[in-house]
């Protein structure tokens, strides 16, 4: 049905899927807390409204970016993708080394339940607090997904469909998990996912910047694998060095 260049489409689907999975799991935690405390009507209503807005943004911005010359898009989007990817990778390195604490979905769920329980609940129609909370968290986490999907799709020139497919698969998986477990998905190794996504986005960002600036990569498209491997090796060294530096700090 779709004729993809798999050297780009494969990593794009994977990056879209993993990055979206992390964001959707964070949104799911809050939406589940809203549903449990304030009722499911408001939680689902707010979530669906935000998803509709996010889909609209992708449909408007995605094709619009394809009208800008590819070199300019690769440089601009590549820079944003690199800033985004390296930020995630740096944070994942620091978390893996124990410098900053790991993200705790269970704790976030408890905190949200406690906060939402303080407000009186509406007896009729939609609960405004439930709708607003679910809408906000889905927008805040979803906007990151939208950026990743558009960036991966636009910079690659025609990769919007693979990037969207990855994100859609993550959304379906997270919704299914939410329906089955009805509690925060805390068993997902979130930092490992963020580590991998940081590596993928940093590799993509570096590659697109090189392409946009006409700096030729050895092996052309396949150099993406080499970039991923070099970022991975550097990140693993960084984790070891950061762990040692952390231990050397005075207690």
């Amino acid at each position: 049905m779709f004729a993809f260049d798999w050297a780009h489409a494969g990593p794009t689907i994977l990056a879209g899927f993993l990055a979206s999975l992390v964001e959707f799991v964070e949104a799911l935690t809050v939406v589940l807390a809203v549903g449990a405390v304030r009722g499911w009507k408001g939680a689902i209503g707010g979530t669906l409204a935000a998803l509709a807005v996010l889909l609209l943004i992708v449909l408007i911005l995605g094709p619009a970016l394809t009208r800008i010359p590819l070199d300019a898009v690769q440089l601009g989007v590549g820079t944003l993708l690199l800033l985004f990817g390296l930020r995630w990778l740096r944070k994942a390195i620091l978390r893996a080394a124990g410098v900053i604490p790991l993200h705790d979905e269970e704790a976030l769920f408890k905190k949200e339940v406690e906060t939402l329980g303080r407000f009186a609940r509406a007896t009729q129609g939609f609960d405004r607090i439930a709708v607003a909370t679910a809408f906000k968290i889905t927008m805040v986490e979803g906007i990151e997904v939208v950026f990743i999907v558009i960036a991966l799709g636009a910079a690659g020139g025609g990769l919007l469909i693979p990037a969207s497919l990855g994100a859609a698969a993550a959304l379906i998986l997270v919704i299914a998990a939410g329906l089955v477990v009805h509690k925060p998905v805390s068993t997902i190794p979130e930092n490992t996912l963020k580590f991998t996504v940081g590596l993928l986005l940093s590799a993509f960002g570096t590659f697109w910047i090189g392409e946009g600036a006409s700096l030729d990569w050895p092996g052309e498209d396949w150099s993406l694998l080499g970039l991923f491997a070099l970022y991975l090796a550097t990140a693993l060294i960084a984790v070891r060095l950061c762990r040692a530096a952390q231990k050397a700090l005075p207690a």
Partner: protein
Amino acid sequence: MIKTILAELLGLFVDDAAFALTILAWLVIATIGMPRLGLQTPAPALILLAGLLAILLESALRRARHGG
């Protein structure tokens, strides 16, 4: 809510200002300055990458030395 979303948008790219600015400065040097040096392919691309790896390593290590 819009303020939160805008803050979240900026936060997508920057949580350590020095880290983000160093990356941007290096990208300017590597993409504008390097092609003028007349280096043979693929040296400019590899130098771009080496700089980014060094920035990542230094920033993470600086944060770790600063404490959690």
